């Protein structure tokens, strides 16, 4: 298909005797939010690392924006951005310095202005000149994602973006992801939270034992299961709903 930004065919990767990927196939369309679901150790990060040119596959092909990740990694890197599983921020620098550094590395003309704009957008202006080591987990993640948006890449990889975040920070990340997609950015997301995929994704692929065992919209996936039974249950609020109701809309400072 023409407007597929990611195409993966027969991707295989082993670490010594451990076969992590056993022939993975999928495609991601431009402007979509694509969620890769899988349990811990399923190989989600391995796929992200291959697609972001950090790791070479054993066999199979992967293209990103039409460029083969193995043979044209420099072209791939021009148009992507990675927010890895562990916040890739510099703790000793301030939030502003982090953003300016990335803008310089992306060879943008006005690093300061780019940084100011992103600080405002991610509500980090007040904390801009504090060292990142003083940031909360949610702020750190926001900065991390802001750093990935420097230079407006067309395709963003988010590897378990909400792992370790509290519910409010998680909702903030969700909002950001939705905004990105609304502006036409393609988002490749990995997660082990089913609800996250349900909330965000246009398409969901399930990675299990090194293969994609299901791939489709939420509706498609639901049809794979037996039809819904009608039952009457008293719906108690979940602890998360209680927590959010009590804490209200308080933002972290």
């Amino acid at each position, binding site marked *: 298909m023409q407007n597929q930004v990611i195409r993966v065919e027969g991707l295989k990767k082993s670490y010594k005797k451990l076969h992590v990927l056993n022939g993975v196939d999928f495609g991601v369309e431009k402007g979509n939010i694509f969620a890769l679901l899988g349990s811990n150790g399923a190989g989600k990060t391995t796929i992200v690392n291959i697609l972001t040119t950090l790791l070479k596959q054993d066999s199979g092909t992967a293209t990103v924006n039409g460029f083969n990740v193995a043979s044209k990694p420099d072209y791939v890197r021009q148009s*992507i951005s990675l927010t890895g599983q562990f916040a890739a921020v510099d703790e*000793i*620098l301030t939030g502003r310095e982090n953003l300016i*550094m990335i803008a310089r*590395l*992306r060879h943008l003309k006005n690093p300061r202005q780019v940084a100011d704009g992103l600080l405002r957008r991610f509500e980090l202006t007040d904390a801009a000149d504090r060292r990142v080591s003083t940031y909360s987990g949610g702020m750190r993640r926001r900065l991390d994602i802001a*750093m990935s948006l420097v230079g407006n890449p067309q395709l963003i990889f988010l590897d378990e973006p909400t792992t370790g975040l509290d519910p409010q920070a998680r909702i903030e990340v969700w909002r950001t992801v939705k905004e990105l997609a609304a502006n036409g950015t393609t988002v490749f997301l990995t997660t082990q939270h089913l609800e996250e995929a349900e909330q965000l994704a246009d398409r969901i692929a399930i990675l299990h034992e090194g293969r994609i065992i299901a791939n489709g919209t939420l509706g498609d996936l639901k049809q794979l299961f037996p039809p819904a039974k009608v039952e009457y249950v008293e719906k108690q609020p979940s602890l998360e709903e209680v927590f959010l109701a009590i804490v209200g809309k308080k933002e972290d400072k």
Partner: protein
Amino acid sequence: METARTYFVSDTSVMLGRSMRHVFRSMDTIITVTIMPIALMLLFVYVFGGAIHAGSDNYVNYLLPGILLIAITSGTSYTAYRLFMDMQQGIFQRFHSMPIARSAALSGHVLTSLVSNAVSVVVIILVALIMGFRSSAGVLSWLAVVGMLGLFTLALTWVAAIAGLSAKSVDGAGAFSYPIMFLPFVSSAFVPTESMPSVVRAFAENQPVTSIVDAIRSLLGGQPVGNGIWLAIAWCLGILVVAYAVATRVYGRRMA
């Protein structure tokens, strides 16, 4: 690719700026790499100095080259530490998924090591001047001293890079520097090797620190350096070439 190459200089300078900030924002680093060697210098000159017969009436002059090497050694151990921390955190992954020169991340650290060690060497020399250090060396000799120290720093920095890239823990990253920091004590840095028992003396006279210290001391003292300086250069170059080869291989493997 050509775009990556043309940006190598600007990318490396961004990396340099980044890790120089790390250096100046860490009191711990500043204390260890400048104040510790200065304290050692004070201790040896004003406490032990009276009892040490180094064959010259100005013990600061005798001591300074060894102190500088100790300072550089502890300075490079922080390069290993910073490199290790970068490998641990996601930041190197981010750099490597960006369209920047691949080696810029590593060269930024190497350059930082050269610059920050140069700063601490200058500070230590200034303190030594206050303590009575005097040199009759001319411009050429000073240039040779700078070159010698630069080469030593570069060689040790690449050794540090191996440690930082392959260490499994923070403690492991800096551990390589302890035995190296000990070498000056079993060399001609503090006392002439003639005073040592024969086995120790044989070791002291044939290890790199002695030849480097002797060469720098002769240069600073306006003495003829003889063939000793070539031995010193050979040691540094040898260590540099081997460490560079190993470090870039480890880096390539870790960043496959």
